[in-house]
């Protein structure tokens, strides 16, 4: 059977990213619809094989050493994999690798590309992509009819569990002939200490409802359990309970995480200005009339002092 869908694992070192499984889950459905196999391209040879049971074929990109990254090197590797497998659809995420390679590979292979995709389907001869435009203010339905189509998918669009099935994929080794004029030098882990709340995928945010700095520990524990930074409304910063870089809002940072979990924040306009674009806002506030519920997707009026420990418990804190 021919390979019809190729998923790129954006693993540079360590585990496969969550997005890879999301794509594998969706990819296997698409592959079925297209009547072909699902392949996953993986950098290097030293990767956790057993986790990739969702795919039928693993394409090992030899020469793409783990632990360092350069776009042209990866581009050459993935291009070789595409050339070797001739899939109908190539799936990547809108992470750094996907943003790097989507456009250039589509151009190289003369295929069509859809970016910021949140859903995919097969419609006769065409691949139908639903994509976000204008920061999610619009959705576009795009039909791709090239013989090879590319999609870069927003992480979180598909359930990852669908891609975690067990299986025993074949392993094929892809040799990269091309010599890209680039050197992958190093991977630098973030310095611990200075927080950048704007870069976090999720924030636990706390407002004056917390009462005093002593109680801050409670939410800190939850944030630690979730491995995400703590952010806050201005009164918390003003009181000196948290340093300034943690402030969200008009006079603080504008954040746009996938999840914004707020506790004891009323939702003053100055605060909303900083976080209303978060993908999902979950608000906890004992006042059912608090304006934060206007922008939140989910809300609860349970007391934060009851809720937070329960949540911490659920995330192994």
């Amino acid at each position, binding site marked *: 059977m021919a390979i019809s869908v190729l998923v790129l694992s954006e693993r540079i070192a360590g585990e496969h990213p969550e997005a890879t499984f999301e794509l594998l889950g969706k990819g296997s459905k698409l592959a079925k619809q297209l009547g072909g196999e699902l392949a996953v391209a993986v950098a290097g040879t030293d990767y956790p094989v057993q986790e990739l049971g969702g795919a039928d074929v693993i394409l090992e990109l030899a020469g793409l050493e783990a632990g360092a990254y350069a776009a042209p090197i990866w581009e050459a590797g993935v291009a070789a994999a595409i050339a070797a497998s001739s899939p109908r659809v190539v799936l990547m995420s809108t992470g750094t690798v996907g943003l790097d390679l989507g456009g250039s590979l589509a151009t190289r292979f003369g295929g069509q590309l859809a970016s910021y995709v949140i859903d995919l389907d097969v419609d006769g001869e065409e691949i139908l992509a639903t994509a976000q435009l204008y920061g999610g203010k619009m959705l576009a339905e795009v039909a791709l009819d090239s013989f090879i189509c590319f999609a870069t998918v927003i992480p979180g669009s598909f359930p990852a569990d669908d891609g975690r099935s067990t299986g025993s994929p074949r392993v094929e080794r892809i040799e990269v002939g091309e010599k890209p004029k680039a050197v992958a030098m190093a991977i630098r882990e973030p310095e611990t200490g200075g927080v950048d709340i704007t870069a976090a995928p999720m924030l636990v945010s706390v407002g*004056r409802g917390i009462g005093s700095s002593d109680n801050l520990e409670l939410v800190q524990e939850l944030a630690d359990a979730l491995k995400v930074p703590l952010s806050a409304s*201005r*009164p918390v*910063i*003003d009181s000196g309970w948290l340093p*300034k870089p943690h*402030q969200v809002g*008009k*006079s603080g940072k504008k954040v746009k995480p996938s999840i914004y979990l707020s506790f004891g924040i009323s939702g*003053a*306009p100055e605060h909303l200005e900083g976080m209303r674009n978060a993908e999902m806002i979950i608000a906890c506030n004992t006042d059912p009339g608090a*304006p934060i519920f206007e922008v939140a997707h989910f809300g609860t009026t349970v007391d934060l002092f009851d809720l937070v420990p329960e949540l911490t418990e659920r995330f192994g804190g």
Partner: protein
Amino acid sequence: MLAVLETRTIFGGETEAARVIFYLLALATLLLFFWGIYRRIRVYRVGRRPAGWRWLRRATKYDIPDVTARPGVSKSAAVIAANRSITKVKKPVGLAHLLVFWGFIGLFLATSILSLDYDILGNASRIVTGHTYSFFRGPFYLGYNAVFDLAGLLAIIGSVMLALRRWFSREPQLDYTRAEIPEGGYSRSKIVLGDQVFMVGLLLILVTGLLIQGLRIDGEGFPSFERWTWLGWLIGKMFASFGVGAASARSAHAWLWWVHVGSALAFIAYLPFSKALHILSAPTNLVVSDPANIRRLPAPPEGAAGYATFADFTPKELLAFDSCTKCGRCHYVCPARTAGAPLSPRDFILDLRQWSDRNNQIPLFLDSEDRPTPSGPLAGNGPLAGTVIKERTLWSCTTCMACVEICPVGVEHVPTIVQLRRSLVDRGEMDPTLQSALQNISTQGNSFGKSARMRARWTKGLDIPIPDARKEPVEYLWFLGDFASFDERLVEISRTLAKVLNSAGVSFGILYEDERNAGNDVRRVGEEGLFEMLVESNMRAFEKADFTRIVTTDPHSLNTLRNEYPAFGLDKEVLHYSELLAGLVYRGKVELKPLGRRVTYHDPCYLGRYNRVFDAPRAVIGASGCELLEMPRNRTNSFCCGAGGGRIWMDDSFLEERPSVNRIREAASLGVEYFVVACPKDYAMFSDAVKTAGLEESMKVVDIVELFSEALIGADLVEA
């Protein structure tokens, strides 16, 4: 007494040598004095003269008489004569100064008369006719002594009062601690010493003057006509009672006379080189200061964005630096300084003066600051805005005008601060939050970054129509300003005002999406280009509309529309909504039921100090039957909320206590439940401050129109 000679000798020792020495000394003193003054005036003359520049300027046709009209010279003279700018706050200090002021003027007059008689008339007549004429005799002499003894006494009393205050008072104004502490420290001990020298010098002249009078009368054996010299007589008697006989009095007189004359001459020579300079510069500055200057900011220098070099300062500004007496009043009232920001208007002026003095090599004696490591005004290089005056310092100003209002010598700090800010803006050096606000204003016409088309969205959900002034003629064009249009909390108040106006039958309309930020604060931030752009768009919008006058919800907009837009062609009367509401009450258009609340009222800077609207909001409060308890700082002395001059767009987390919180605590001490405001920015600032101060339970911030609408009979406006 044969040939009663009701006069006296002039010199200590009547020798020819003494005369020669005295004249030489006096000549040297005068030369030094005039050279000292000349060398400062020469520097003023280097200053930039903007187009249409005049030292003294009559009100132009654009001046709205009450706030920007320039008092005539006679009015300024009256202010100076009564020391009114000094007495307006600290009465006792002002009185003491008034005594010194008039005492010295008297003594100066006395000396001048004497000099006219003796040095000029006497010497001239002797040379011409060989005979020495003098009018310093007879009844004139007696009256002269009686009057000028009084002057001396008053001057001494005043000086002693001021000296005691200087020595023993712990008032914060007298503390020379800087608001911005330079790295490496600083010392102002020279300034402190300079104050003492000034004071002790004055006292020395006064006291020796009286003593020699007493000694002279004693030495002359108390001729009875000298009783007219009542104070000298008393002192002479005192000497006599201590056993000082005529002979020893005469010799004591001879040398004490030299002490007196020497110190007086020294003081005159010292004057243009020291703190004493203010004796001349301060009244001059009061005459040339201009209330329009702060309300209608001057343009940047030709061809430059803002102040960068010495030559950018106007002669008036340079004179103002020399006029500052370091009284510390502005330092004390400044909300930025109070909140712990590195700005003190006093230090600002002193730093600029020191920098100018240093640049022009005209240092003042005992009136400068020292720093172990050169920085600020002492740094050799670096930009004026940024090094001489730190960026943070410049950005701290709320342009609240409290400093200008209180300054006894008419220093205008704010226009100069803005001129320096302009060069920061030109270099793009500002808070990121300010930058994004300016960007929003330049792209969307509002600081909220909302689409210009959303400006009238607050009208949605109102069941009354809001007329479009571009489509139908209206009496009042309602200019809302950004906060009243976009802030979620404030649009509710805007709706209330709309309902009130509607039910009172006022003909009004708005500009819908054509309204732009009026630009008052943009201009005060120092973004002159953007200000002009905003004026142009608003003027275009005004041209599209048909209206008689403008009413605005925003005091900041009021200021620029009323005082600055006329220069761009606006010729309509501009009112604040409190004035419109008060008008409805006066003209009996509405009937209000008393609410019976205890409230206090906060005067917005741009409404009160800037535009002198104090009574209209109070009338509205009164008419709604509320008991108004005034905060200690009210009317011209109101304390800024901290939002003005673009501060609302900047980070304020570095402040120790935000001015709004300070203000709320002041109100809380009155025990009122309602804090009434008449400015949308105030509403935002104080709602927040009430929470920070933990007073949500006991105090509520309300807008005057909320009170008004609640008290309005026959209209159900007040649901939510």
